[in-house]
């Protein structure tokens, strides 16, 4: 049964931001909505939405976002509320934390991964238990 009232889409309005190829930011970036970085950022980024680093993008700093897709260069830690995807061609140095972390073939990654997921029941209990 369709809902009657047709109010505007309630996705974050104008929630997108793009730091284009020619842009360089030195400082903190915070905000609501999604962010696409094709330029260079030196500083921490904290957004409520998703963050995507294009293949020309480079970020030096920590990231706090929902889902994170890295196609370019990142030196810093990622704390994602969603999935972290490191694309082919990306160069990442840092700790990745997220609901899931995936690294595509051709990506370069140095760091630590901390994905939060529940172990299946049979593996619960002391790690390395015989």
């Amino acid at each position, binding site marked *: 049964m369709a809902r009657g009232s047709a109010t505007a889409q309630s996705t974050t309005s104008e*929630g997108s931001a793009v730091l284009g190829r020619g842009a360089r930011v030195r400082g903190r970036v915070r*905000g609501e909505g999604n962010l696409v970085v094709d330029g260079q950022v030196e500083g921490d980024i904290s957004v409520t939405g998703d963050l995507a680093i294009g293949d020309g993008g480079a970020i030096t700093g920590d990231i706090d976002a929902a889902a994170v897709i890295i196609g370019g260069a990142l030196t810093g830690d990622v704390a994602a509320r969603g999935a972290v995807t490191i694309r082919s061609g990306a160069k990442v140095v840092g700790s990745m934390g997220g609901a899931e972390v995936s690294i595509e073939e051709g990506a370069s990654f140095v760091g630590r991964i901390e994905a939060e997921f529940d172990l299946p029941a049979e593996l619960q209990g002391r790690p390395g238990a015989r």
Partner: protein
Amino acid sequence: MAGTIIGQGITIEGEITSDEEVVVAGTIRGKLNVDGPVTIDAGAVVEADIGATSLAVGGTVTGNVTASERVDLLSGARLVGDVKAARLTIADGASFKGNVDMDV
């Protein structure tokens, strides 16, 4: 499409430089230097000195503004700061407080 778009919900504290067009709908505190056109949308808040080739202000800017070509203050704009530009227009409904230097 503009090279760089700083959306409504985004706040950047620091220095931004770009060699492509920049559209600001969010908040910037710091410095903005663009080798190209800059548009400050209505609702944007910029507390920074701005350098650009051309600048169109529809929002609020607190800071000194230097443009190599022109500065246009649109209706609803608020600019507190000095303006240095070859050409300047201040639309009816814009607010402006500062010095103007058009001798580039």
